């Protein structure tokens, strides 16, 4: 079981690692400039354009490489923004007195019910269509989900016997939080943030597909898909290539999230002879599925 999990982690790291490597290389070198249209429109794959060109004559490989950088920036940026806001709000609600908890929870419910697409359009209307706007919209939408999860995790841990036990021995409240509450919510939170990273990459692609993301000359996989749509029958590479990379990155990130679950939680590691009792591990599975990773913004 454990071996299968660590294999999951390894495969995930390889898949995501390929995309990260491509993105890093794109910072220093791309085959052509992103706005170089000298290759002629819809050139077929072959030297000097390894994957051909798009309908404006731009090199497809160059666009893909820059797209990798944009996808990773969007994903990591959104998770950083959504994670910080979400965890902070969740901790606040989780530890707060009743009325403050109720207020924050009501706000979160409203934010969660608010369509992410509408939120993105509002952000773009207020600012401009840019990578920053996309990150802001995705991060805000994500923060409500992360906050709700964090709040539930805090509440659940606070109700545990070991918190009461620690307090009966005179451990001060800040110390209980630092030593027992935070370490116990962290593994689930980490796994959820990793899942959110995959979702954020997809969300950025969707927004760019709709023209609400990164503007030219910087390429985004979502916009490449949209631009290639009209010529998908005559030049399929333009649509297939960004689609494949998107899948590779998201699957890689999700596999990492799955593998992290074991690394972060010692009760799931089969270390030595005694496996975790069933009740405990199934409660944890329930907790992880309650993490609500299925919501695509």
């Amino acid at each position, binding site marked *: 079981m454990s071996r299968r999990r660590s294999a999951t982690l390894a495969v995930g790291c390889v898949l995501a690692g390929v995309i990260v490597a491509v993105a890093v290389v794109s910072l220093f070198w791309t085959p052509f400039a992103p706005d170089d249209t000298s290759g002629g429109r819809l050139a077929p794959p072959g030297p000097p354009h390894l994957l051909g060109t798009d309908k404006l004559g731009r090199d497809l490989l160059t666009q893909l490489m820059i797209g990798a950088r944009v996808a990773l920036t969007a994903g990591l940026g959104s998770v950083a923004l959504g994670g910080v806001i979400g965890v902070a709000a969740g901790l606040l609600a989780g530890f707060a007195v009743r009325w403050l908890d109720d207020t924050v929870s009501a706000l979160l419910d409203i934010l969660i019910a608010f369509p992410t697409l509408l939120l993105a359009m509002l952000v773009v209307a207020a600012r401009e269509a840019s990578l920053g706007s996309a990150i802001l919209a995705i991060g805000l939408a994500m923060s409500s989900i992360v906050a709700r999860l964090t709040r539930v995790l805090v509440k659940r841990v606070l109700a*545990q*016997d*070991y918190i*009461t*036990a*620690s*307090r*009966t*021995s*005179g*451990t*001060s*409240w800040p110390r209980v939080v630092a*030593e*027992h509450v935070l*370490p*116990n919510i962290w*593994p689930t939170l980490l796994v959820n943030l990793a899942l959110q990273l995959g979702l954020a990459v997809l969300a950025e692609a969707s927004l760019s597909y709709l023209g609400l993301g990164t503007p030219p000359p910087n390429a985004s996989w979502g916009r490449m898909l949209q631009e290639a749509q009209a010529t998908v029958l005559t030049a399929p590479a333009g649509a297939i290539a960004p689609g494949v990379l998107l899948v590779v990155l998201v699957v890689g990130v999700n596999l990492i999230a799955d593998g992290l679950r074991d690394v972060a*939680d*010692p*009760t799931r590691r089969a*270390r*030595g002879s*005694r496996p*975790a*009792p069933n009740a*405990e591990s199934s409660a944890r599975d329930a907790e992880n599925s309650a993490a609500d990773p299925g919501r695509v913004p």
Partner: protein
Amino acid sequence: MSLLEVSALTVKAPDGRALLSEVSFEVEPGARLGLIGESGSGKSLTALAIMGLLPAGMTASGSIVLDAPGLPRTQVVGAPERTLNGLRGRAATVVFQEPLTALDPLAKVGRQLAEPLRRTRGLRGSALRAAVLAALAEVRLPERVAGAYPHEISGGQRQRAAIAMALACEPALLIADEPTTALDVTVQAEVLALMDGLVSARGMALLFISHDLAVVARVTDRVVVLKEGLAVESGNLLDIVAEPRHPYTRDLVSSARRLDSALDLGAR
């Protein structure tokens, strides 16, 4: 002068229902008292009320006075959190029923045991590590337990670790809330004997909470019987067994007798 003096303690649920009504008892320094009752009778709630750790929404009224040597005499009911936290651990601490949930699943046993040792004795570094191993040896746990997570050791070992953690606080009063109920019968006897010995050796007072008359009889001779939040009977265990006055106590005694006679028949 009593170490713990509970008088007319009433605990109400958020909806106003009385979960404990007018319960009174005393524990002298170094003395032992058994608190017997079925589940839901308010035994554990009594323990939490003494620690000032009632679940949110529950309110206590009446009086709980803790007067441990070296600590100020304190009225627990209505005391501010800061005062209470100064008492917890040193005046009294609790060993809970289910050691699997009473230990942090993500922290190694040694680290959890180090927490009270560091606080009560001000130990650091290698001295702290030595004290952790000594505390484990005292409850007859091998050194390797220090590096194990709670789920990696057996139920009996977990409860020994929990007892070591409670003793590390050096409390004047140890509250044992059904400490052996979650354990196998054979392990139960070992853990009970161990706790009995350690509490005597340190001259600690013991408030022993259980639903099991036979278990209580092994560690204490004075009992309070709780039934639906009321203290229906209290006094010397032998007197109560010989002459139970309340119907519930009679049930307890006769069911214990039935088991005994069944065992006698089986032995024959």
